[in-house]
């Protein structure tokens, strides 16, 4: 579903992503783990065309390396951005409506709204409230619900656990699990490697802008280097 070849990202003279390859098949759940500054967020942003990048990105067989960023959501690629990026002055409901901005199938949108409310009942309670007044965890739910409203086939999630209480992390990851069960392909960026690998089928380890390891989750969890560097053992 997603094929990435030689992806590079530069910030001025600094190379944040130094030519990485990724492959994700339909229905897979893939984690991208690594330390702070490894280039994970830059990779996701480059895939969503929020950053100028080099290399080739193919989604569903089509080259999206040069696609205008606002056309990606219509192709079925959604990103839950770093720091959530909710529209703070819009209501929760309006945020969700923004998720469906690229769609015009009203009946299906209404059905998806119901589904998001079922998955994230808190959002239904807070539908009329301004998103900026919600807690961090609730905002993360808004960001995830909003991405779901685009009916994505590939969902990119950037650090969904960041800044959340342990209870809220469980809730949010429960929702992500439900989403994956519905057949949405996932690429999950996380600093919390154990959490990410417990959810995903396999993972890539990123370090200093390069992929240093690629294996299935069980192998990564057993790998002494991974344990030492990312699992705090």
């Amino acid at each position, binding site marked *: 579903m997603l094929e990435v070849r030689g992806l590079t990202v530069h910030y001025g003279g600094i190379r944040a992503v130094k030519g990485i390859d990724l492959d994700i098949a339909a229905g897979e759940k893939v984690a991208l783990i690594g330390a702070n500054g490894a280039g994970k967020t830059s990779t996701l942003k480059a895939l*969503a065309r*929020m950053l100028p990048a080099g290399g080739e990105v193919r989604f569903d067989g089509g080259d999206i390396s040069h696609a*205008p*960023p*606002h*056309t*990606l*959501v*219509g192709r079925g690629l*959604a*990103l839950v*951005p770093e720091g959530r*990026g909710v*529209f*703070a*002055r*819009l209501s929760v409901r*309006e945020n969700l*409506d*923004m*998720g469906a*901005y*690229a769609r015009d199938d009203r009946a299906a949108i209404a059905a998806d709204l119901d589904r998001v409310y079922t998955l994230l009942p808190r959002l239904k309670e807070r539908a009329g409230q301004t998103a900026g007044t919600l807690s961090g965890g609730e905002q993360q739910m808004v960001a995830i619900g*909003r991405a779901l409203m*685009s009916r994505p086939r590939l969902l990119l999630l950037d650090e969904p656990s960041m800044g959340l209480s342990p209870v809220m992390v469980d809730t949010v990851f429960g929702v992500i699990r439900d989403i994956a069960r519905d057949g949405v392909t996932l690429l999950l960026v996380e600093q919390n490697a154990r959490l990410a690998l417990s959810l995903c089928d396999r993972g890539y380890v990123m370090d200093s802008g390069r992929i240093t390891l690629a294996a299935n989750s069980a192998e990564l969890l057993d790998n002494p280097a991974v344990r030492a560097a990312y699992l705090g053992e």
Partner: protein
Amino acid sequence: MDIFIQQIINGLVLGSIYALVALGYTMVYGILGLINFAHGEVVMIGALTALTAIGLLVPSGLPGPVVVLGGLLIAIPVCMAVGFSIERIAYRPLRNAPRLAPLITAIGVSIVLQQLAMMGWGRNYHTFPAILPTTPHQVFGAAITDLQILIVVTAAVLMAALLWLITRTRLGRAMRATSENPAVARLMGVDVDRVIAFTFVLGSALAAVAGVMVAANYSIAHYAMGFMLGLKAFTAAVLGGIGNVGGAMLGGLLLGIIESLGAGYIGDLTGGFLGSHYQDVFAFFVLILVLVFRPSGLMGEKVAERA
């Protein structure tokens, strides 16, 4: 007392016009963080275009209001085209430049438009033909003309429509989302460039209407009229809280009333030392007070600098 009521009426009329112009400043600021100093010039172009069209239509013998409407219907698309071009030519290439660059460019655009208007329309004052009924109605001892009523009502309808557009429609939602976070709005599928262009076009359409109102209200238009009007409307936008659409409406009306009351009473206040032609003092006095004591404006929230 009747002077007080008269000045309130005059202030409402003036304030309605300021509000329409202030909306153009505040919408662009809300989306781009840019003060479009050329906006006053768009008002001027609207006024002069309408006057030219009206001058051509008068000999047709059509009723006055129809002639004015005709002028308006020509001025609106002309101003929309001007607003669209300004954004495309002057601001879009500087979208990622340091903030000072588009600000200086805005001043440059303002000067260019003013000079072009001077070349096209000359340095003379253009008078609005006396084709609208001017019989005053008496209200609580004060006078109000049909034209004044029409200005206030038209402005109110336009502002209500604008609020509806911004708060209730898909496009308005996209405008608000873009103003908060263009990068994320893009992720949602919003073509941010189009939203920005639309914002300029919308503001310019309002400016065209305001231009015709000014010309009709003062019976006069001039290539340099946009400068002072633009500054006043900018003041109104700052007073209401720049970036806030409701604030621009409130700020415009308040500024109009403050200015009218000031003009009405300045003679008494200064023992006859200053006359009503000093009315501009009040607008800028208000601007200074707001900038010193409440820089975020009446309805503005404290906004952190964008990262």
